């Protein structure tokens, strides 16, 4: 038995989330799907589980062509998907959740089914416990049991290890190995190199919507890193490092969100210095950026801008002190859908007057559109612009004097021309004394533009590197969580 996807295309507007993906998964081996966030893994799996309909392409299971228009079709075809957040109903009991979607109302039969599956995999459930009281790991187990009971022959797991404990992870992996050994098709989706290496027999790597390689495991980690991030050609060593006074100073800052806590981090950033934050998505980079802009209050430690202690102050204070934050989500955390370019410039300028001189504002917008070569008119709305032009607009909206610029993925999704342009702008700011801290998944970018690189792994800065003395291999290793001498 084998699952085959042939030439799957799925576009969202201009974004080619899946651009001709072909993938074959044999029964009996654990197949990993590896790639950075945004590589198109989740889209592919959503196509496979009927959640999205593919633009074109064919899916077949055991030689039989499938038409998947809804998750129900997928389940009926024997394809079960375990979502990152298990799809359980929290107030319902274990047994109720188990029975959902099965079409049977016989609690006795369902209870037997659940017990049988639980015995097989060493799960233990109390049928009448509300699922709310289960841990995320237990909810996953329940979901796996449910999918198997529904007759799944293919099991897809989308980033299943987020939010579960180490022992639950072990148990999950053991279950998956058993299932694969029993002849089931198991696809394990992850951006975590180590897990794929631990668990899978074979891995397919995706990047920018395409399959870039497939190999049997084990292989040397560098090979996977190279597939994930592309061939690293960054020249090492670059001009211009700074000796200015300190702009930002973090002392033993401990940060925490619901999912991730960071270890105590200390960092000093000088005027005109560029710091790159490397690491797999969600390793703590965003927490650090949010702390530096007042959006996340540190649990302990102190933050200072220049000589001024900013610990505990709100975003507005940071904003007024010359800190500018540009998160990755350009349309969610930066621009406002529905508002025009002119309106964005008016908002960005602070708009202190009650009445706006709209003619003057439109003239100013036209001038800035020209200066920043944005493809659009003063009346274009933010969401009608392409990603590159949205980024240009965001940069054009920045106030003239910024002390500290914090950015997430400055060039993600941009073509080369736009990406170069963005960095020309950023370097110009740098030359005028702005300190830049940016997170990126692009190793070239990190090596080419940073003075120093902080490598994050699981909430910890595991290494601080001088970008001039670092090469792509070393960085790739560190990102994967391996320490290199």
């Amino acid at each position, binding site marked *: 038995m084998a699952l085959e996807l042939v030439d799957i295309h799925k576009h*969202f*507007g*201009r*974004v080619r*989330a899946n651009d001709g993906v072909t993938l074959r998964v044999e029964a009996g081996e654990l197949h990993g799907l590896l790639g950075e966030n*945004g590589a*198109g893994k*989740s*889209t592919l799996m959503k196509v496979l589980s009927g959640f999205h309909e593919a633009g074109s392409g064919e899916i077949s299971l055991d030689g039989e062509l499938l038409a998947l228009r809804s998750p129900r079709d997928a389940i009926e075809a024997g394809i079960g998907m375990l979502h990152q957040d298990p799809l359980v109903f929290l107030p319902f009991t274990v047994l109720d959740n188990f029975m959902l979607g099965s079409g049977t109302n016989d609690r006795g039969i369902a209870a037997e089914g659940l017990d049988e599956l639980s015995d097989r995999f060493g799960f233990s459930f109390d049928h009448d416990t509300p699922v709310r009281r289960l841990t995320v790991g237990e909810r996953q187990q329940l979901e796996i049991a449910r999918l198997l009971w529904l007759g799944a022959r293919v099991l897809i797991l989308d980033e299943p290890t987020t939010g579960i404990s180490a022992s639950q992870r072990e148990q999950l992996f053991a279950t998956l190995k058993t299932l694969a050994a029993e002849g089931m098709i198991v696809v394990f989706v992850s951006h975590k190199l180590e897990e794929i290496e631990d668990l899978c027999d074979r891995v397919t790597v995706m990047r920018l919507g395409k399959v870039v390689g497939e190999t049997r495991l084990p292989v040397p980690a560098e090979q996977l890193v190279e597939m994930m991030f592309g061939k690293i050609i960054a020249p090492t060593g670059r001009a211009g490092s700074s000796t200015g006074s300190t702009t930002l100073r973090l002392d033993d800052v401990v940060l925490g969100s619901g999912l991730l806590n960071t270890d105590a981090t200390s960092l000093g950033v000088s005027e005109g210095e560029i710091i790159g934050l490397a690491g797999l998505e969600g390793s703590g980079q965003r927490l650090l950026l949010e702390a530096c802009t007042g959006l996340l209050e540190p649990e302990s430690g102190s933050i200072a801008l220049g000589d001024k202690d900013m610990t505990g102050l709100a*975003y*507005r204070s940071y*904003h*007024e002190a010359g800190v500018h*934050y540009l*998160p*990755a*989500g350009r*349309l*969610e*955390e*930066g*621009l*406002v*859908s*529905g*508002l025009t370019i002119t*309106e964005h410039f*008016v*908002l*960005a300028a*602070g*708009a*202190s*007057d*009650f*009445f*706006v001189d*709209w003619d003057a504002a439109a003239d100013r917008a036209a001038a800035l559109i020209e200066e920043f070569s944005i493809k659009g008119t003063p009346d274009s709305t933010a*969401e009608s612009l392409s*990603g590159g032009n949205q980024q240009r607009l965001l940069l054009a909206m920045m106030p003239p004097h910024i002390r500290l610029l914090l950015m997430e993925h400055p060039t*993600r*999704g941009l073509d080369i021309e736009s990406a170069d342009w963005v960095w020309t702008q950023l370097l110009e700011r740098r030359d005028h004394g702005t300190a830049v801290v940016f997170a990126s998944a692009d190793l070239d970018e990190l090596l080419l533009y940073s003075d120093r690189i902080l490598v994050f792994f699981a909430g910890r800065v595991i290494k601080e590197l001088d970008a001039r003395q670092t090469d792509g291999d070393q960085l790739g290793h560190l990102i994967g969580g391996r320490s290199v001498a």
Partner: protein
Amino acid sequence: MNDRMRRIGLAVLPIVLAAAVAVLLLLAVDAPPLRSFNLVWNGSLGTTNKLADTLLTWVPLVLAAAGLIITFAAGLWNIGIEGQIVIGAILATWVAREVPGEAYFIIPATLLAGMIGGIIWGLLAGVLRVYGKVNEIFGGLGLDFVATGLAVYLIIGPWQRAGVASTSGTDLFRAEVWMPEVGGFSWLALTIAVIAVIAVFFLMRGTAFGLKLKAVGANNRSAFLLGIPTDRYMLAAFALCGALAGLAGTVQATAFHHKLVPSISGGYGFLGILVVLLAAFRTAWIAPIALFFMALSVGSTQLSLRLGLDSAIGGVLQGVLVLFALLAGGVQAKRHLGKRRVAGATLVES
């Protein structure tokens, strides 16, 4: 041009459909359609007297709708507007009963009191939303019940008519408090409504305040990152809407009923939500749409008086029209959904 024609077509289509259904409905209850339409017209806008009546009911509706334009712009469903109208009416009533003075003093005083009442009630919903994280729909709905309860308590309790505790309302206000009329037209109320609509129109279209409010409503997170104090703007939206709702309550009390009654809001708050939705959040459209609603509502009483139809027929006609307009809007939205979904999905992916 072609696009424009299509847009006009899409706007007219539901009206044609609704008119067709209205004709069928009237035929079904054995009412001659043309005569019925004529009766509605004459009973609402056709004669000076009726026009004055219709316009007086139009005022509170249009005030409520104007206020809701502001809260909707900020992304808020101000369901609490009914309560804001009621509290406005209660405070205006208190001034009318307790404060002595001539008309030139007492009328502005009641208006001011009404606005303050509405602002307080609006801000309460706002504070619950902004600081208590209580969804404004639930908070507002709760506050509506409290306000109505308070009105009923005052009417059968402290403000009961001499000798009788009845829910029919308080004693009539003294004549100085009544809003002035000329030839049956309550000119002051009308002026207030017209000024309110124009003010809201320019507030939302031309000012930095309106722009920031729109940004807060369309994307709270982006607005916050742009340095807009989003909490304050949401509170301001509640306060402004409350003020206009309070004015509506005052008009209801001092120009229409001339006393406080339990159902003082007249349902104009909820109806105002419908008007704003039908106007697709455009200020310029609320005045004619509100007028149409009120004309149908006032005029259809003639159908029961003259043709012996059930008095519910006006409401049914209103409902049919609203459904068709919303349906047309829904169809349009569905066409655009493809595009929007694309935008949404792009975000998820990146």
